[in-house]
């Protein structure tokens, strides 16, 4: 492992920490190393930007297929509910 990796993390570790960061708080050292790595690594800057976009899409995603008609499904569900009665 080169000196620069010890100080600044490798890109592999940096992208791994970016993933972990979306789910839990990182320790101080990890946080500082990640911050510094992204400051100096243009490739990981691109990765970070796209990763944030993907995170947003994964949270918000919807898939509306205009050709899919939900009327039949609605009727099926209502029949099932009525069939169960209000007991």
């Amino acid at each position: 492992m080169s000196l620069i990796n010890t100080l600044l993390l490798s890109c592999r570790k940096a992208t791994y920490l970016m993933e972990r960061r979306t789910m839990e708080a990182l320790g101080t050292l990890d946080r500082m190393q990640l911050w510094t790595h992204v400051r100096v690594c243009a490739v990981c800057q691109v990765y970070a930007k796209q990763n944030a976009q993907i995170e947003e899409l994964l949270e918000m995603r919807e898939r509306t297929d205009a050709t899919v008609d939900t009327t039949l499904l609605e009727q099926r569900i209502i029949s099932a509910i009525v069939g169960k009665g209000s007991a």
Partner: protein
Amino acid sequence: MRNEHTTTTPILTDQLGTAEMSALVKQYTRMLVSYARARLNDHSLTEDLVQQTFLAAWEGRARFAGESSPRTWLFGILNNKIADHYRKHYRDPRMTLTDGQDVERFDSDGHWLNEHRPTDWQADETADKEIMFDVLARCLDTLPEKWRAAVEMKYLKQRDAKAICQELGLSATHYWQQIHRAKLRLRSCMGTALRQHSQ
């Protein structure tokens, strides 16, 4: 056809009856389907889970009693149904954990290999959401089944890693590694698809 009052939001009480419930079905089915369909790669499974959601809501209507909005209530049930599906999927030994297509993106020092360096998505600022959702959905479908399940759990369980690891029977480190690999693959797949799209 029954006479429905589809335009007004029904008032929810512990006396929620079949008429009010039917109105909720008419109001929310499409919304729930489009949400679930984006998270599952199977249309009939989507419809099945939406139906189960309403039936569970109907059975549990006494507990609901207007404490949250019907929307929050229904989406909460649906999220649990989808998470349940992926939990079972993940624990099913027949599901694939890896595949031959996974490539190494870093050299032995952990730096990006030339051919795998992320480059700007030409379409990123201008592409409309529909295209991005579509590309994402298709890329998610290419993930090995267990990776897909691991990724989906992250958003269904509000990023609660502890709960997810417990449900999937994984160590935290193993879970991070898996979604890290899945994310690398997803990002790369999206880049390729968006480049093709913009050409």
